[in-house]
């Protein structure tokens, strides 16, 4: 049992417990909760928030934060939309989707890289740098779109946002792949190792010969890249782009990271518990929705839930101490 605990991490077991609790609770109270349709809707809603959470995860592990994730995703989506619209709109060829997506990825990565360079070389605080980038991207986006929607995309985009492969929603597959890549990045690559060490003590990492500046730059570049993936998915799912779309998700991604046991001060965090935390949050909101609760109430429940988890974590941390003492 202890070995299992160590392998999975107490965090994961606790979260799975929460998930089971949520499923049972809503299964009993909301008649349509345990239906394929409901799980389907969860599966379609999760990836957008999930990809943005992954974009938030690495900066937090490195001891920072990226407040620009949503607007980076918007601007990336806008890039794709612009390419499609200038090449026939609804009739744009598939090659233009490829070009547009590449453009989106480049724009996202670039936005991240600029932040990373500033953070790494000037030592400015990530919150301030990413806040400035967020305001810049938001203003730029609103200027370019005049605050309106851009829509009218080719039909072949639909499967990306709404299709199924072997019964599994395409966005969910995309998210699963992204999460797996992030997991490998963090646990098995030198870059992920360096990011984690930097999050704990950047000066000691530098003394050990870790290229801290290069690593920080790469961290935010990758974060921007993941935002772009989310941006492309949002284009496909909503068939339109509006700057500010998904704005409310920003703080939810932070919440999901902390719920998934990521250390708010950096240095510790894993992809698996964060993904489970995302599922818990999504199940909570979907269950409340089915019970007919107001959208805002479900946000309030998320907040309460996080507070509850923190108190429980504190309690759990006290138990072994007392046993020893």
């Amino acid at each position: 049992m202890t070995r299992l605990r160590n392998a999975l991490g107490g965090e994961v077991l606790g979260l799975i417990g929460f998930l089971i609790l949520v499923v049972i609770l809503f299964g009993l109270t909301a008649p349509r909760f345990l239906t394929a349709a409901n799980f389907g809707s969860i599966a379609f809603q999760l990836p957008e928030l999930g990809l943005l959470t992954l974009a938030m995860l690495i900066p937090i592990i490195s001891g920072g934060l990226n407040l620009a994730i949503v607007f980076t995703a918007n601007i990336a989506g806008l890039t794709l939309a612009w390419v499609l619209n200038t090449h026939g709109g609804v009739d744009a060829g598939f090659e233009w989707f490829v070009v547009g997506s590449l453009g989106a990825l480049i724009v996202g990565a670039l936005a991240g890289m600029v932040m990373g360079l500033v953070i790494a070389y000037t030592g400015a605080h990530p919150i301030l740098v990413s806040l400035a980038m967020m305001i810049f991207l938001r203003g730029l986006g609103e200027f370019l779109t005049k605050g309106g929607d851009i829509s009218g995309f080719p039909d072949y985009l639909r499967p990306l946002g709404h299709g199924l492969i072997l019964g599994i929603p395409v966005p969910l597959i995309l998210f699963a792949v992204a999460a797996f890549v992030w997991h490998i990045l963090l646990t098995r690559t030198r870059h992920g190792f360096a990011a984690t060490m930097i999050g704990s003590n950047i000066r000691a990492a530098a003394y050990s010969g870790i290229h801290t500046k290069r690593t920080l730059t790469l961290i935010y570049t990758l974060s921007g890249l993941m935002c772009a993936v989310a941006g492309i998915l949002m284009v496909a799912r909503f068939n339109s782009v509006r700057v500010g779309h998904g704005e409310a998700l920003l703080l939810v991604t932070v919440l999901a990271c902390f719920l998934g046991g990521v250390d708010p001060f950096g240095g510790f965090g894993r992809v698996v518990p964060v993904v489970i935390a995302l599922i818990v949050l999504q199940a909570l909101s979907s269950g409340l929705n089915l019970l007919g609760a107001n959208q805002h109430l479900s946000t309030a429940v998320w907040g309460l839930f996080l507070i509850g988890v923190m108190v429980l974590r504190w309690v759990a941390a006290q138990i072994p101490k007392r046993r020893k003492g």
Partner: protein
Amino acid sequence: MAEPAIRLTSVSKRFGGVQALDSVDFAVDAGEVHCLAGENGCGKSTIIKIVTGVYQPDPGARIELFGEVVEKVTPQEARARGIAVIWQDLALFPEMTVAENIAFETMLGNRPRRVSYPAMRKRAVAALARLDVDLDLDARLNTLPIAQRQVVAIARALVSDARLIFMDEPTASLTQSETDALLDVVRKLSARGVAVVFVSHRLAEVLDISSRVTVFRDGRLVGVYPTEGMTQGRLTELMTGKHFETTVAARDVTGPPVLEVQGLTRQGEYADVSFTLHAGEVLGLTGLIGAGRSELGHTLFGMSRADAGQVLLDGKPVRFPSNRAAVDAGIAYVSEDRLSLGLIQPQSIADNTVMAVLKRITSGGLISPAKKAALVDHWIRELAVKIGEPTDAVSTLSGGNQQRVVLAKWLATEPRVLILDSPTVGVDVGARAGIFRIVRQLAETGLAILLISDEATEVLANADRVLHMAGGRILGEYDPRETTLQGLEAAIYA
């Protein structure tokens, strides 16, 4: 016989299962400079905290402050009676001015009242005048060097009419000239009848400034001794309770030169430094803090660039743009600050061990868990590090074992040159011997080792040759087999 400022009798303090103080007596005379000596965890800080009311002693203690028995010492009571502490972190307000920092306490009270800046300035001026120090009253504290901040902290104590000041490791981060200036201030305080209790692990300084020394060991009083006629060696024995034979490990080294430093100069840090380090040699580099030893180490490790001179590695000139380049060239550097620079405390023993050799445990672009485990296992066994699990946080280890993990990290890079900067700081005396056994074994395998230390005993006992550095320059070279501790110390403290 001077009258006592404070007199504590049979003070005990127990924290859970730890007897921090076991029925100790401690007395300081008015106007005396008294030193409190002992190893880490001997109870020094506990007694300070009891005198200043932070902790309450266990029943049975008697505390007499300036001739009056005080039943219960609270922090307010201690301050009102003229006892002040200057902690290592100084507890000042970095964003406020010198005058505000010195005199803010006089503006506190039970009733709200208007802050009078002219009155504060007057107080601050008076306090600084008593110390004969000239400071810009309007300078923000965070623009001052540490040494001047310390003066501010002392002046603040004087404003609240302190008659007894505790100073906790006041010289730990000062250069030699700053230390001299501080010791000067301490002498002035003493001349004005203010007693000073000095806590410092720099024994030379302790013997220099104080008239008496109280030694604690494991929460017990060892004794109170006059510093007249006391030697560093004797004091070490009293503090550790062990007799240290000064064996000398030095031998003649015949290995080829590995690291040649020629006329190396960096403005404001060190000048015209030249020496040769041979394979298999342990070269000691000693001198007071501020002599430029660590700065030199930083340059050799690629963390700073020299202005002039050159460094040859295996006969070829090298110039490192970063410390990574130095690591790749075969130079390893064990930092003097193990806690915040040598290791990443909250991370695991395994991760700390592999940190500098990530390339070596990577195959196909991915870190191989098997290679990592094998490497960690190898070094933990090689250096006999006592650990629970490799996944435990490095902070769970003792100082000596932590230092072994640092060594493991650097030895894993298979270096040609190992720079050890004060490798035994915060390591118990017993564990130090273990560290130096490893150092000697490494030298025997042909590693070239530069041992930087401010403890003359340490370099004499463990190095093959000793260089003495002061004011950024190398002043002399000593053969430990022909040098006495007194001789070397005389040179260092000259």
